[in-house]
């Protein structure tokens, strides 16, 4: 693999890692919000 190809692979890995991180952050917030919504629902019962 040439240095240029290595750079390309690195760049792609970096962008995938960034997107995965953002998705995990989003899911953490979503699960927290679902938990709050569920607690709210059970409180009303």
């Amino acid at each position, binding site marked *: *693999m040439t240095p240029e*190809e290595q750079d*390309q*692979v690195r760049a*792609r*890995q970096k*962008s*995938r890692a960034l*997107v995965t991180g953002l998705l995990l952050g989003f899911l953490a917030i*979503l699960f927290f*919000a*679902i938990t*709050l*919504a*569920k607690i*709210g*629902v059970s409180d009303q019962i």
Partner: protein
Amino acid sequence: MASSPIMSGTATPALPAHWRDFVALTKPRVMTLVVFTGLCGLLAAPDHIHPVLAFTAILCIALGAGAAATLNQWYEADIDAKMKRTANRPLPAGRMDRQSALHFGVGLSFFSVILMGMATNLLAAAVLTVSILFYVFVYTIWLKPRTAQNIVIGGAAGAFPPVIGWAAVTGDISALPVALFMLIFFWTPPHFWSLALFVRTDYAAAGIPMLPVVAGEVTTRRQIWLYTAIMAVAALAPVLLRLTGPIYGTAAIVGTAIFAALAFQVYRHRETDPANMAPEKRLFKYSILYLFLLFGAVVVDRWLLP
């Protein structure tokens, strides 16, 4: 073209796939209609759901549809490579290895179903499961390569979203979501066959037995007209059964009349050159607008005239 089958099926690309290619696998444009009909099913339900749970339900419908689309492309990578319309998808273009697509599709399927079950209820999760399995196993693997009736029966897969949206809110399935299911089910043949008429050569090259390839264009035009008549009954059924109000009634009558007029033009048209198939392209485009219009009207009816 010569290298496509190898690239699509077995070759491992030198570069790891770009994240945009994973998004492309989920067919985001097709997902728009799925999300919209699912959202309409959810909003038309006679009950309330917490906005966060409603958002999660729609997200799960979108992810489930994306998972099914991914598995469809994983299975059909070799066929996609033979069609101009699909040759640039991530797998046939060689931008992603097939195993990554399989893992992504299976993972997304499980995730969407489990999240749906956790956030809403088991019935919604079960119907979502059935819709994914139906699309992958019944439509993609079983029907599509074998019969010209593939999209008639396979169309059921795309008809599930309003049922899932409704079930996510109410926990049951009543007459209106079933009527909406039937509407999409009978809308699918004229929608897809109008497209198949002007991309017939693509399907023929890939060996897919779409109706225009197997039975010819005249038969396809007649079938479009026939299914439009059945679809009209399905579109008017919610009105006749008093499941919806006057807004949907007006939209259904006017929208279906226009649909029927366009389908009749297609029926009478005798052009074989795709470049001159203006009525077919018009019907295809209008059919998408039609579904948006009718589903939107169901929601407006429910919210403005409860």
